[in-house]
C-alpha cells in the first residue's frame, strides 16, 4: 500500500507519503533541542534536498504506518527526552492533521550539532 486512504461520502481521499513526512518533519522541528532532520554531512543534504525527504514512511499491508526520523540534536539537551518529545509531537500532529495513528515512530540520532 502506497497511500493511506479514507473513504468519504463523496469519494476516496488518498494522502501521499510525502505529506506524512512533511507533517512529521515540521512537528519534529518544533521540539526544542532538535537542530535539523537528516545527517550531519553536506553531501547527503545536497542529494536529499528538502529535510522531509530524509524521513522514511513505511505503510504495511494492514495500512499501519511506521516512521523513521533521523535527527541532529543541539548540544546540551538530554537525548532520550528530546526523542520522546519528538515522538509525542509527531504522533499528535498526525492525529490532528490527517487522522492517522502511527504504529511506530522510530528516532535515529545521527549526530550532535557541530560548533
Amino acid at each position, binding site marked *: 500500500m502506497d497511500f493511506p486512504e479514507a473513504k468519504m461520502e463523496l469519494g476516496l481521499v488518498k494522502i501521499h507519503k510525502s505529506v506524512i513526512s512533511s507533517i512529521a518533519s515540521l512537528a519534529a522541528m518544533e521540539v526544542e533541542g532538535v537542530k535539523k532532520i537528516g545527517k550531519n554531512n553536506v553531501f547527503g543534504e545536497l542529494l536529499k534536498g528538502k529535510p522531509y525527504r530524509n524521513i522514511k514512511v513505511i505503510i504495511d499491508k494492514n495500512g499501519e504506518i511506521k516512521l523513521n526520523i533521523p535527527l541532529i540534536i543541539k548540544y546540551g539537551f538530554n*537525548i532520550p527526552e528530546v526523542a520522546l518529545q519528538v515522538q*509525542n509531537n509527531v504522533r499528535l500532529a498526525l492525529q490532528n492533521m490527517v487522522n492517522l495513528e502511527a504504529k511506530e515512530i*522510530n528516532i535515529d540520532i545521527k549526530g550532535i550539532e557541530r*560548533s
Partner: protein
Amino acid sequence: MRLFTILGIIFYTTVISLVGVIFILTAFNLLPLNLINLWSDYLHTNLQAKIVVGGIGLLLILISISFAELILGKIQREKTIAFNNPSGQVTISLSAVEDLIVRLLRSISDIKDVKPNVIATKKGIEIDLRISLRSETNIPELTMSLQDTLRNKIQEILGIEEPITIRVHVVKIISKEEKESSIKKEEPPIPFRGYGKI
C-alpha cells in the same frame, strides 16, 4: 566468531588462493598451453559444461553479495546504541556520541585536540580517547577528572545506565614554544598598517 563468518573466510581464502596458484602456474609456464586450449574448446563446444561453469559463476556472485550484505549489516547494527520508547525505537549513532565527546572536551582548556572512538559492546560502551595536551598540565589528575566528568555527562545526556569504559591515550604534549608560535601564526595581518589620520 559465528560459524557462517568462519565458513565465509575459509571459502574466500580457498578461492583467492586458487586464483593465485593459477596465476603463478601461468607465469612460470607450468600450466601447459594445450591444457588451457583444451579446456576452453571444451567450454565452447559443450552446452552442459557452459551451464555448469555459468551456474558456478552466478553462485559465486550471489554468495559474495550475501556475505557482503551480512558483514555490512552487522557493522551497521553494531554502530548504534538503541532503547525503546512506547512510541517506537530510539537509536543513537556512535558518531553522534563521538560528536558529543568532542564538544564536551573542547571546553577543557588543557586539551588541545581530541579524537574519540566509541564502540558499543554487550558489556557496555567503550570509549578510546586520543588526546593532545598542553605541557603545563598534570596528566594523571586531568585524565582522572576527564574520565569522571565524561562518564557522568554521557550517562546524563544519553540517559543510559550501561557501564562506560574510558581509555585515554595521550598522543602529544604541546610545549609552550609550540603553543606560542601557533598563536603568532594565527594572528591575522592588520590591513592598511602605517596609515594614520592627518
